[in-house]
């Protein structure tokens, strides 16, 4: 379980905090959507979930591990995978399979296991036949799926996605969303950040953010009837 308690975040040099006291819990296997206008602190919040940022005040626990504890940051980041908005800034391998192998390689897994994880991760996102392709020959949607495979190869319990469907056409968006739902069905918790309402109607829970706070939280029915 991920537990966020009274989280306040202020970037260095800023007077006004971006996050002003967030409290939330995300259970194993849950599909949580975080929605809100641009600049409300969504991205900052999910960066806290895998210890890319340290709280100014408050605490974040991932399966009981405090993200302030720098000695366990590696394990926290393995459990909470993070897919950023721009896939071009995440893919670092010269080929698709090498890119997916980067994470498991950092975990120092034996070559055989790395190969197995790469194959499984690419198959899970429907990119099995792209293993040898060069990243710059892929479309935007394909790159997005590669970054998802990158994270899957780490065997995460939670995946935080920052606007995973932005700048994708409708058909590709549907592909990405259906893959996310399928992975969620296999037990991986999804934390899906978006400002697109119609993507998240099937989420277990929706949190509406505004101005650094969670202003509304509940099932899609509750949230949409409250709007």
């Amino acid at each position: 379980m991920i537990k966020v308690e009274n989280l306040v975040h202020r970037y260095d040099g800023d007077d006004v905090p971006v996050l002003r006291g967030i409290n939330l819990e995300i259970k194993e296997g849950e599909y949580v959507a975080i929605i809100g206008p641009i600049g409300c602190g969504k991205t900052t919040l999910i960066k806290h979930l895998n210890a890319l940022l340290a709280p100014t005040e408050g605490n974040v626990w991932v399966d009981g591990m405090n993200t302030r504890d720098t000695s366990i940051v590696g394990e926290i980041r393995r459990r909470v995978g993070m897919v950023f908005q721009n896939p071009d800034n995440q893919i670092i391998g010269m080929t698709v399979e090498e890119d997916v192998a980067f994470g498991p390689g950092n975990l120092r897994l034996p070559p055989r296991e790395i190969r197995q994880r790469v194959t499984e991760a690419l198959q899970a996102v429907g990119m099995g036949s792209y293993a040898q392709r060069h990243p710059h020959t892929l479309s935007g949607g394909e790159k997005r799926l590669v970054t998802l495979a990158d994270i899957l190869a780490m065997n995460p319990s939670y995946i935080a996605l920052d606007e995973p469907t932005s700048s994708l056409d409708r058909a590709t968006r549907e592909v990405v969303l259906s893959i996310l739902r399928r992975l969620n069905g296999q037990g991986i918790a999804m934390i899906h950040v978006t400002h697109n309402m119609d993507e998240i109607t099937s989420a277990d829970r929706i949190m509406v953010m505004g101005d650094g706070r969670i202003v509304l939280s509940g099932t899609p029915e509750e949230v949409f009837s409250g709007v």
Partner: protein
Amino acid sequence: MGYKLGQYTPGSSVIHRLDPRVKIVAIMLLSITVLRADAFIAIAITILIAGITFIARLSPSHLLRAVKPLAIFFVLIFLMHLFFTPGAPIPLPLATYEGLYRGVLLTWRFVFLILSAAILTMTTTPSELMSGIERLLRPLRPLGISSHDAAVMVSMVLRFVPTLLQELDQIREAQMARGADFKAGNLLARMKRISSLVIPLVRNSILRAEELAIGMEGRGYHRGPRTYMRELRMTPSDYTILVVLMILTGLGVYRW
């Protein structure tokens, strides 16, 4: 997309399948021999390279294209030696037999250095090349050189060159759409205009580097040892070829 200089040409030949470490060492040995070659060795190496090209099923015209950008340089070297080497004159003003010999040999050396490097990159994928270099650098660890960090750095450079070129195109098109003309004016004016491309490109790259670093940390990146999807393994034929090459180099270099 057209054929690029020294670009990997897929194949399943013996040369393609050789361990990249053997190929890298072979190129080094070959370079030593080429730089010390006399006419006899030069002919032997020419036959060797022709043989390798044939076995690897590389297109000779693709291979020779690697030399093309430096053609003017080679002509200059040749002419300088032809005319400025003292010795017995040949029926051409100022030229000497010694000059002809040295000119041909020196030009040959440069051409074959480039050709052998081109054969390496045409028969080895960038990834194989990378793991080859990484493994060859491992013994340097006591000197504070981390082969793993070096490998990550080089492979990221190779990964981002095409992306940067794409970006450069976009920036240029965006500026042309607003009336910039990158072809007008003299050389100085054109070079000044290039700065308007370079500044946004550098700015983007710095921003990208920051996101990239965060993404890498998120995937557990740390300096120092890591593992790879494929570990290189030398086969008996790799060892055999390596030993044969070493003997040939020894013979070639210390023949006299």
